[in-house]
């Protein structure tokens, strides 16, 4: 039995300033510990051996989960997925986000794992990412000396890579209120009914009304080095045509936005086919609610 994790110092800061100072001091030798559901697994596998873990759950700001008519939803870095999934405003205003977050891991994992951790892990399969992409979420990043806001579509840089510098962390995610008369959905193909990473994840947000631009937003997980939004394909839905025709036109453009690979969960061709089928099913279903 591998009974020990690699050695590290454990820090338990109680304020935002203290957290950022620790991160600035240890930089790449430190990792932020929120839920630990990815980090402890990767420590156990010796994929990473940081000298310092900074547990952020003691900091009040990171535990903030709030909703306001003006600013939308704010999810602090230590808010668990289950807190989010059962939060009234998330269920009512952002059902797509609650739906997507509810497919991550299993109930016990969601008791510890966080929304912010799900994106900071930088996995191409992050289930919350397609929902955050179509909701056009803003990621709040801080270091000891600076803060910046990063649109979610600029956050991911590659497999396990994000825009974060070693002395930076995500403090919270803001999700603006979705357009009026919009509805979204997240469809996840997995090998078992229970916990599994997505073979393909598709999020769509469809808006009714006379305004034709930005009518359909589409984003994908597990089919490219990062979660991706299919901007070019979205434009096709601005035309005034029956939905089946629009979908037939849009799918080839969707396929240009993704580049699925073969891995333990699915083959490349199967993934590509899932992208086609799931996009059609999801968008048609949401369109018909019109």
């Amino acid at each position, binding site marked *: 039995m591998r009974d020990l994790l690699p050695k590290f110092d454990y820090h338990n800061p109680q304020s935002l300033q203290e957290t950022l100072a620790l991160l600035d001091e240890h930089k790449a030798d430190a990792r932020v510990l929120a839920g630990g559901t990815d980090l402890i*697994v990767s420590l156990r596998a010796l994929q990473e051996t940081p000298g310092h873990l900074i*547990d952020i759950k003691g900091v009040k700001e990171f535990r903030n989960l709030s909703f306001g008519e003006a600013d939308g939803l704010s999810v602090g870095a230590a808010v668990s997925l289950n807190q989010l999934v059962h939060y009234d405003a998330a269920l009512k205003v952002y059902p797509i986000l609650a739906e997507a977050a509810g497919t991550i891991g299993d109930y016990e*994992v969601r008791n510890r794992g966080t929304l912010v951790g799900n994106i900071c892990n930088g996995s191409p399969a992050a289930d919350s990412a397609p929902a955050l992409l179509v909701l056009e979420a803003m990621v709040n990043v801080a270091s000891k000396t600076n803060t910046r806001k990063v649109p979610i579509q600029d956050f991911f840089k590659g497999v396990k890579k994000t825009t974060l510098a070693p002395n930076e962390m995500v403090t919270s995610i803001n999700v603006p209120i979705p357009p009026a008369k919009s509805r979204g959905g997240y469809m996840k193909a997995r090998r078992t*009914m*229970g916990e599994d990473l997505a073979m393909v994840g598709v999020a769509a947000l469809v808006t009714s009304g006379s305004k034709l631009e930005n009518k359909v937003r589409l984003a994908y997980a597990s089919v490219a080095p990062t979660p991706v939004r299919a901007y070019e394909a979205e434009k096709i839905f601005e035309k005034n045509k029956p939905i089946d025709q629009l979908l037939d036109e849009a799918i080839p453009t969707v396929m240009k936005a993704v580049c699925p690979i073969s891995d333990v969960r699915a083959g490349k061709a199967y993934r590509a086919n899932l992208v086609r089928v799931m996009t059609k099913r999801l968008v048609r279903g949401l369109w018909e609610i019109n």
Partner: protein
Amino acid sequence: MAQHSIELTVNGVRRFVETESNRTLVWVLRHNIGLTGAKLACERGDCGLCTVLLDGQPVKSCLVLAVEANGRSLTTIEGLSKEGALSPVQVKFIEHGALQCGFCTPAAVLAATALLKRNPAPTREEVIESLEGVLCRCTGYRQIVDAIIDASHSNH
């Protein structure tokens, strides 16, 4: 690497433990406190057999550092019976034969106990969902789900 002095309330009893920062909660429960109901199996959050209740919520204790649990309350399978009497969920597991080898049973019973606390009348689907994180390789789950549904009826 610093030693940490932590305080855990385990099944209602306060425990003081000296631990290194890189010890997981399941390790401390088994090796420092001597409670072996939470199992070490995959140790990567897949099987769920190390499930314990942390402040009433089921978590995988292989993914929690012992130091993170400082000051918190834990319930393990050893803490469910009261004065020698098994809990209602435990009784129903026996009645329904909801175990063969028994290795996952502490985890399944704890997950079910937490489910019935937050949702006293779950649907079959909700019971199945609550067991997503607990792998059983013997029973095929049917008896486990039956036992939990039955326990929910006797809840009322």
